[in-house]
């Protein structure tokens, strides 16, 4: 694992002004992966946009952890349906 691609959770807490328990709770729920390297906890830079989204939903919209899990599942389904809808529309174009 390239350390340059990792951001320390401590740094995340400082920059985004979130409690460390929030990041740990996200990890426990499977919503964010914490990577531990030599006793320091990190998050991969590719997960930052997901983290930002979860932070906004939690702190701005006051959605609790269970709500975040439900939203993540539903958003996954929405994206899957959007993709399937796009493919069906493309197939339909063949007959129009």
């Amino acid at each position: 694992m390239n350390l340059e691609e990792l951001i320390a959770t401590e740094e995340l807490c400082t920059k985004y002004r979130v409690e460390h328990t929030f990041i740990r709770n996200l990890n426990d729920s499977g919503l964010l992966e914490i990577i531990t390297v030599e006793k320091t906890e990190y998050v991969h830079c590719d997960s930052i946009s997901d983290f930002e989204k979860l932070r906004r939903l939690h702190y701005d919209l006051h959605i609790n952890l269970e709500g975040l899990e439900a939203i993540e599942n539903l958003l996954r389904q929405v994206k899957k349906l959007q993709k399937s809808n796009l493919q069906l529309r493309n197939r339909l174009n063949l007959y129009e």
Partner: protein
Amino acid sequence: MDFIDYYKILELDKSASQADIKKAYRKLARKYHPDLNPNDKSAQAKFQQINEANEVLSDPENRKKYDEYGKDWKHADQFEQAKQQRPQGGGGFGGFGGGQQQYSGNFEDDRFSDFFEEMFGGRAGGGAGRGRATHFKGQDFNAELQLNLKDIYTSQKQTITVNGKNIRLTIPAGVENGQTIKIKGHGGPGVQGGPKGDLLITFNILNNTNFKREKENLYATVDLDFYTALLGGEITVDTFTGKVKLAVKPETQSGTKVKLKGKGFPKYKKEDQFGDLYITYQIKMPTNLSAKEKELFQELQKLRS
């Protein structure tokens, strides 16, 4: 520039209390937040209107000005001068004092309306949520690119325009319909020295060919005349890159599948490797038989029974 009714946007009337505004804002923000409405541009636009309405109405001073001038906002400066009440520096229409709650989101464009800019002189700094909006990375931009199936048989370079910038990119052969590729560093600018966001391009592949595509394999149905199917022979079939001759075995049944190895689509990011083309024979029976033909078929039938 049209007058914008912020009360209407928040579904409130003019007598609404600060608590009502907060409640309405929170309710609508939960409904239209871009994180909860992926790829929904109308929800994003609505959310920006809600944010703007809240920024005005949740600040008592700005709300007062908005209520006072309403539709006559264009003449607000003259009114102010006449009343000689314009405070120094940043007062009057000079912007917001900050402190109200403002939800943030992953927007492609977070500009406020022309009406807002004209009336309040631009958005105040730090409006992205209780001072917690420090971001390392800029916003990701989303774009959709429509291509024909034939276009992606080979890798090709294209120039696309995103937010007024021309970006030259190479589209790898074999890209999938609905696939999104990330172009690092072509999104919005980073905050506080952070890296730029990424550009996410989703491909919408239109298939206007006679081939059905599943990943790198292609599928086609070919009509086969009755006699060739029965006695065997040679036919010419279309592949994605041209015609090929194909030997047909005698007594070929309808629905028989033939694999043409390597005549499919290129594998994604492995342009020298190709999938296969699967051809399904559909046998066409002769019609409008003459009396002689009928007689001969009846003879054949007798031989078989």
